[in-house]
């Protein structure tokens, strides 16, 4: 009995000293190793006289636990000190810059096209496309703009052959023709895309973007046209109220035709859409001309509807405060970075067009 008590006392006093991990581990082995002082005592239990055996075993267990706990605590303490020492040395200047990253951007015209598509998607339009190179028929003649029509003067056309049979489309309206030739009514489509006119100055670029709209059904009249555009403009500019004016105009492929103005004012050098008493022309529209329907073999006594054409670049300029049309296509990194959108900013119906 006094044996194990001696061991206990001896080692408790040993463990009171400042010890290294190795020294503690040595003590651990000395006590609890295969032939350790404590371990060998357990082997002796069998040889203890019956009457003392129970008490011996209980005492031995107590001493074992006591020493073990002491050793574990000791080790923990040392480890903690070590970690704290290490942490003290590991302190770094977190104000140093992070690893470099690059941010891509989506061009404002692309973003605007997605916004437009998203808005029209909500009211049942689907997206159609057509080629940039068009034939003279689809771009003009089928759209009730025959050769020698003065309206052709309004379109300064890029031609690809001397006979003026192929050209770069001057508007997205030929997509109307392609769509109607391809399918049967009803139609409800928009067609965004590149358009070209040989015109170049501060407010004109030889290439720009338009979105065409076409809605043909049995009883689509001008009220639906007005409603559709009113909805679009409100959604696009993300305003509650909009001032909109339909003004008679003329396009060979629609009749009656209208140009649409929206009200605006300039406040602190910024344009505010939907207020004020200034008018800004933003699009042209009208009822699809019976001659156009005839050209695509649609019976105009049964089907009718509207079409519109909107300048996308211009809308983007208005919405995002961009002053110069030419800058869209100048590819100046600084400009693209400034006016571009984060690729994760996908315009959607449920999340909203913009943040």
């Amino acid at each position, binding site marked *: 009995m006094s044996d194990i008590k001696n061991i206990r006392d001896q080692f408790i006093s040993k463990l009171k000293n400042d010890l290294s991990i190795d020294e503690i581990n040595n003590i651990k082995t000395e006590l609890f190793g295969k032939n350790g002082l404590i371990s060998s005592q357990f082997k002796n239990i069998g040889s203890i006289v019956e009457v003392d055996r129970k008490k011996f075993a209980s005492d031995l267990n107590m001493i074992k636990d006591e020493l073990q706990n002491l050793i574990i605590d000791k080790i923990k303490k040392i480890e903690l000190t070590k970690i704290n020492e290490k942490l003290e040395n590991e302190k770094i200047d977190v104000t*140093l810059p992070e*690893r470099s990253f690059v941010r*891509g*951007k*989506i*061009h404002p015209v*692309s973003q605007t096209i*997605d916004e437009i*598509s998203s808005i*029209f*998607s*909500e*009211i*049942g339009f*689907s*997206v159609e*496309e057509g*080629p*940039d*190179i068009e*034939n003279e028929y*689809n771009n003009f003649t089928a759209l009730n703009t025959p050769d*020698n*029509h*003065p309206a052709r003067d309004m379109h300064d056309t*890029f*031609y*690809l*052959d*001397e006979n003026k049979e*192929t050209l770069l489309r001057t508007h997205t309206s030929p997509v109307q023709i392609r769509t109607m030739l391809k399918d049967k009514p009803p139609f409800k489509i928009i067609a965004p895309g*590149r358009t*070209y006119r*040989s015109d170049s100055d501060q407010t004109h670029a*030889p290439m720009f973007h338009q979105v065409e709209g076409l809605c043909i059904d049995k009883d689509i*009249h*001008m*009220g*639906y*046209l*007005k*409603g559709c555009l*009113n*909805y679009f403009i409100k959604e696009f500019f993300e305003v509650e109220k909009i001032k909109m004016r*339909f003004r*008679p*105009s*003329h396009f060979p492929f629609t*009749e*009656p035709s209208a*140009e649409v103005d929206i009200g605006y004012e300039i406040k602190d050098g910024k344009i505010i859409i939907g207020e004020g008493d200034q008018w800004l022309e933003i699009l042209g529209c009208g*009822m699809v001309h019976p001659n156009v329907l005839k050209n695509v073999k649609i019976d105009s006594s049964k089907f*009718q509807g509207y079409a519109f054409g909107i300048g996308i670049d211009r809308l983007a300029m208005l919405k995002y405060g961009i002053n110069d049309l030419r800058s*869209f*296509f100048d*590819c*100046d*990194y600084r400009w*693209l970075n400034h006016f571009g959108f984060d*690729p994760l900013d996908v315009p959607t119906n449920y999340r909203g067009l913009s943040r």
Partner: protein
Amino acid sequence: MKITFDWLKDHLNTNLKEDKLLEELTNIGLEVESIENLSSGLDLFKVAKIIKTEKHPNADRLKVCDVDIGEKELKKVVCGAPNAQEGLITIFAPPGAIVPKSKLKLVVTKIRDVTSYGMLCSESELNLSDESEGIIELKTSKYQKNIGKSYFSKSNSNLIDLSITPNRSDCLGVRGIARDLAASGFGKMKYIKEKKINSKTKQTIKVKINKEKVQGCGSFGSCLITNVKNTESPKWLKDKLVSVGQKPISAIVDITNYVMLDINRPLHAYDADKIDRGIIVRNSKSGEKFTALDNKSYKLDEGMCVISDNKGILGLGGIIGGTRSGTELNTKNILLESAYFNPRSIRGTSKKLNLDTDAKFRFERGIDPLSIESGLNKAALLIKEICGGEISKIDIQKTETYKIKILKFDPNLFERVTGFKISNKEMLKILEDLGFKIKKENKYLKLTIPSWRPDISQEIDVIEELARISGYDKIKIIDPIKERTKSTLTKSQKLFHFLQRAIASKGYIEAITWSFTDSNFNDHFRGANKEIKIVNPISSELGVLRNSIFSNLIMYMNKNLDRGFKDLSIFEIGPIFKGSNPGEQNIVACGLSAGKKSRLSWIDEERNVDVFDAKKDVVQTLIEAGYNYDKFFIDSETPNYYHPGKSGRLFLNRGKEQVAAYFGEIHPNILKKIDIKSESIVGFEIFLDNLKLPKKTLNNQKTKFTVSDYQKSERDFAFVVNKDVNAQELINVISSVDQNLISNIKVFDLYEGKNIPENQKSIAISVTIQSQEKTLNDKDLDNINNLIIKTVENKTGAKIRS
């Protein structure tokens, strides 16, 4: 079309104000483009009398005049005009007035030490004529009592510039605009009784319209006015023309201009004495020449409608007259022409000759064929009134007669198209006001279309008239229904949008550049494609359609590098062109990166962007778009604008059907030619039209979810192979060994050099082996190990490195 409210009032009775007018013009489709106040400040110009003139003490040619401007004191004015003399009544401009011609503001100035308190004006300075010799001389009898009063009649009328749409030729005359306004309720049309020429003399110049296959002249009306004295126009006429920005020239020219602007009736006046034995209206012969009033000589093609005499061409009918028969101030006898020319013919000729005149602009839009006589009546009588002379009878030659156009109109169509109703009464009133003659016939209206409306031929045209005049504000807004029966985007459109954003999310800035480009740049990237020229480019730098997006991107990349940016990634997704026919185009997503990664980083090592950056962006983008990485196949055949050794092409599968993408360094020779200054330029092209669209939708693209929880082990191999064996081959061979057990293969080292024979390389590969069914024991693993080594060695000639 420029008008003034005052001029409109010649035809329109109204009490309404100008702001209302502007609103109404716009509302009925005659868009007001701009308003300019020409007369503002003109009231400062006063009628004045020179009381005394003295020679300027310091200048021989100058005089110092004391001028009576109706005030107590006389004004001292220094004047250089030789005709400045005592008693002359002229026009005085005080300091502060702005001289119309020079737009300069007058101030009190010292002219050679004598102070001048204003200016005496010449006609030219006031834009009244080109007369700049001397100051204006006003008739004493008429102006004596006006001294001190404004010379210009008080007019608050602004110059209103209207943008008339090409269908509305009738509104190229003030009366036509007045008619539209009256129909919309803005005042009432004035009835003007037409005065007719009352003459017994015959028109003695014979006019003949030749029979031609295509004769551009439908009818030719004329009358002869003899013994006129061409003079300067009277003030009212000058004022009128000046008020719409036209310059008065001489009475005869001014009158023809006035009639054209007033009733949209172009006329032409010939000096009758210069016409050689009669007028012949005929088609030109190829190569015929004539000098037009714009002092340019034109060489004509065959078949242009010309007015000629026996000597040759006098003018291009309906477009421009010639110098040979033009009227001058000393012209005695005039032949006045009022004709009808076919719009198509006018347009064809003027386009070919690149000629634009007021007459041409009107004739090509369609002139009222029935206005021939009224134009002659109005102009001839005015000429007689102002220039004197005798008027002959009107002579009209015709090759065609105008047929009255009648249209059956169903009034119910109006609501069907516009969605709103107007009463029958209103409908009839609008149509009558616009000049239609109406007969009711059952439920239809039988409409006689006014001769001045060539644009109206079908019912929809009538609907537009009714809608326009009753007002587009009456169209009700019908809110759209939010429903969708068809998906908004097609699969390829979805792919477009996905790739666009996937590429941008990898650090590329999206650019949109022209579809055309500089042929010099295009040639670098044209490959085997043919050049597609634009016949009429904006400039030679934008002369061809792009065969590749690289040409523009690299040009703009260079500009940005010049701006001092070094590490840039830009991309564009858009069309490239293969041919000049519709549809010969493809959509390409093209990216370009320059410079370094981690430039000047305190933490990472900087390095040039390289082919594997481009490859990563391509591969990741395609995987994100839903394509299976395990099937990708890559080889090194690329177009000649890529670095021949550091570029690759990617197929979506081993079948190598269509190239999905190219990636790599841009060829150093091109970079040198373009003189681009960057450590490295790499790029890629993804061909959207070559990407097979996944048939499956997203929800059934996901296969059953299975994972193995059995232990996996990784084994590393190093193979020594010939240099021409590529990593892809090794990987394919390894993965073919046992696709069930081999779950991942990774190349983790490439070594050439010491200890490796020349022409060979060592590729180190880590293979992950895992079973779906059990934990593999040492024996299993050894088996697969050996199999891998054996297969690779057999199939590729590799040797395992020990």
